[in-house]
């Protein structure tokens, strides 16, 4: 390909590359957010359960 005269048009590959890079970073950020939200929900549920158990134990 690079033996041809002039600069080849490889902009499609460049766009695909940057698109994938941003999508992967975005997905990772989203995964951190979702896992964090789920853990916060778990924690509040566990804390409520603990509070509910305390009067019974007392």
């Amino acid at each position: 390909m690079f033996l041809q005269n002039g600069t080849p048009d490889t902009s499609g590959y460049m766009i695909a590359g940057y698109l994938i890079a941003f999508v992967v970073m975005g997905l990772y950020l989203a995964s951190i957010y979702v896992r964090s939200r789920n853990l916060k929900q778990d924690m509040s549920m566990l804390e409520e359960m603990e509070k509910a158990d305390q009067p019974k134990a007392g």
Partner: protein
Amino acid sequence: METKPLALTILDIVSILVLVIATYLALVFAPTELVMGDVQRVFYFHIGTAWTALIGFMLAALFSVTYLITKNLRWDRLEVAAIEVSMVFFFITIVLGSIWARPAWNTWWTWDPRLTTAAVTELIYAAYFMLRQGIDDPERRARFGAVYALIGGLSAPITFFAIRFFRTIHPVVIGGGNAAAQGGFNMTADMRVAFFFGLFAFTIIFIDLFWHRVRLGELQNKVEQLKLQSSI
């Protein structure tokens, strides 16, 4: 979970800014490489992500040693965070490299020493998470993970030096001189600006994501402790 520190909020903003600037420098500011055309521009993110990922894997090995010495689970959380963020960055490195290879080498993939060591590194760390998934006891999981991360950490320098030790078609842009390399190029002054800013930007973004991942690990730890307490 503790409220988000102000420093982390500032780091989030700085990370977005440096990512925007790095993208501008790579796509607009840097000149088009005459032989490869625009696809060469993926190089700025390819190297930026590779640099931070390989440092992250070696940092994880360092955290694993510290865990094995101190037995403090905080080091385990740092190790996991470093590996996870590095894996994401290294995945981007490999995909960008493959996209660049298609017009440059006329193939998406070849079992060249650099590409092979990079793929093996990524798989080693994918197996690291599988190993951890299979162990319930936190201390046992941390111990096994630390030993694995320590041995796995060797793959990072092997990957880095693969293009310097072996005959390979992968170009060495900095300090290169590999006769077999295909697709190498000399950087102009403007390309160097985009290149070094890319390294800086991905280092900042790595630190930011790492911090977020460490906080997530701490939250996971609290939930695990609460679950253990409630089951007693």
